[in-house]
């Protein structure tokens, strides 16, 4: 398996504070690599170093064999980047934004025009190609920003919070496109706050906290690793008394989730019997009942609390 990104001992200080602290990881060709972490954990700083936007303080980054510090232009030529805090040029049309990107990557004119047309069709924006970006909705702008990152047909695509703040349909479209790009052989480096998104898309995730890597593994492996935290989610037709439920000895913790109660336990089977007894005794009717294994969010919370 070929490593397309190799990070060794990467470190960065900002104003005397260590933002990224001697991190190491590899990204294999063709995988979707999730990069997760709480705000201020060092995610964006790491991505900026990987994409050559800022220089590493210490350590090495290799992008398909090119050292980003020594050969930034060659390394950048292989990437497409969607930075978190980024915008297309709002005074330019969608078409001109795409062609501008192609020019910066040295894409021949004819190829650039063909790619721009194909991408505008893929993102369902061809009819708006001559409209200025300032007239676009947030979802449309994000689609154009991603299309701009694809104009050079990159080997590796860096996506920093690509679905942040988007409506459900736009976010789903972008996730579908990420899947399609990955199926076509592109390596995706995805940073996201949405655990479900990472769980759905990533072959492997790294969790960073306080500038250090807390864990790197496949999502399911991470869930097994933290263990113990199974839960039963139940909703009743009327509000239930949480204190009465807390008296059930097998329940370790209770969290209210909207109209549902999440009961954390090691023994979901016996909890179900107790819930049936409880609902009969209190004249309640169970509307929904689910048993759930730990989610990636549980893994994230556990690991970021451990290191923190």
């Amino acid at each position, binding site marked *: 398996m070929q490593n397309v990104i190799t990070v060794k001992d990467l470190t960065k200080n900002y104003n005397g504070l260590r933002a990224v602290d001697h991190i190491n990881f590899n990204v294999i060709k063709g995988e979707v690599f999730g990069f997760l972490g709480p705000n201020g954990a060092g995610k964006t700083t790491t991505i900026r170093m990987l994409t050559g936007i800022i220089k590493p303080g210490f350590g090495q980054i290799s992008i398909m064999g090119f050292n980003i510090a020594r050969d930034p232009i060659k390394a950048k030529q292989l990437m497409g980047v969607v930075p978190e*805090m980024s915008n297309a040029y709002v005074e330019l049309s969608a078409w*001109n934004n795409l062609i501008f990107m192609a*020019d910066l990557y040295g894409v021949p004119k004819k190829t650039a025009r063909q790619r721009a047309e194909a991408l505008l069709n893929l993102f369902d924006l061809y009819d708006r190609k001559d409209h200025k970006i300032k007239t676009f909705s947030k979802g449309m702008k994000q689609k154009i920003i991603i299309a701009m990152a694809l104009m050079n047909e990159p080997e590796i695509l860096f996506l920093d919070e690509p679905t942040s703040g988007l409506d459900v349909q736009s976010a789903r479209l972008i996730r579908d496109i990420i899947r399609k790009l990955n199926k076509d052989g592109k390596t995706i480096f995805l940073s996201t706050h949405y655990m479900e998104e990472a769980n759905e898309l990533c072959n492997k995730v790294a969790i960073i906290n306080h500038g250090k890597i807390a864990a790197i593994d496949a999502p399911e492996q991470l869930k097994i690793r933290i263990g113990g935290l199974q839960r039963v989610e139940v909703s009743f037709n009327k509000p239930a008394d949480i204190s009465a439920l807390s008296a059930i000895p097998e329940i370790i913790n209770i969290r209210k989730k909207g109209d549902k109660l999440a009961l954390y336990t090691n023994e979901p089977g016996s909890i179900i019997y107790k819930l049936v007894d409880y609902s009969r005794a209190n004249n309640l009717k169970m509307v929904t009942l689910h048993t759930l294994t730990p989610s990636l969010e549980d893994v994230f919370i556990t690991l970021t609390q451990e290191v923190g």
Partner: protein
Amino acid sequence: MKRAYAIAKKDMRIYYLKGPVVIFGVLSPTFLFLAFMVGRDLQIDFLIAGLLGMTVFFTSTSVSPVVAPTETQSKNLERLAACPVSITTILIGDILASVFFGVAISFIPILLGIAMGVTIIHPLILILGIVLATFCFSAMGLIFSSTPTSMTSTVMMLSTMIKFPLVFISGIFIPIRELPLWGQALASLSPLTYITDLCRYSLQGNTYNYYPIIVDIGALVVFLVIFMVAAIKLHEKSLPKRL
């Protein structure tokens, strides 16, 4: 160079081809010029040479200082920094756009002068001078924009604080040879002095320039190199602070 040209094209579309920018580029030096010239009995070729020098100066330094802060604010800079272009290429692109604009606008005072009977005695020297000066002043504008801020007003204030005093020490309103010794020494530190001197030579003739032509051209080249190197170094330092 193709990538720098792409950046220049983008700058032209976004920042330069706007009515207010073009009008400001012409009106600003014209009003300043009229304020000092009205009521004084001066030759038309002297006036046009001064106006031309000032127009080249104001137009070439009008937009280049605000590109970086504007793109910081509009969140375009990070996108650009992730592309396979060096800071030098980005700055050369910004300079090229500014040069195209400066050269194009300089035709206005030239045509005005021709309409008023001024003859261009040394057209090649004039063209060379204008092109060199627009490069030089555009690079100077990039030094102002290296301040790591997203506030264009901060950069404009800094730029105005430096640009306006230069206009008064560069032999535009008073010929250099009429200045006191300290004034002449001060004038020699301003790049605007040399393009004004070249304009006088080109429009008024061999006896009206203060410095030999080779000194004027050499000084503009030296200023261009200094401004360019300084702009690259300063922008390399300020880019991470902008993100």
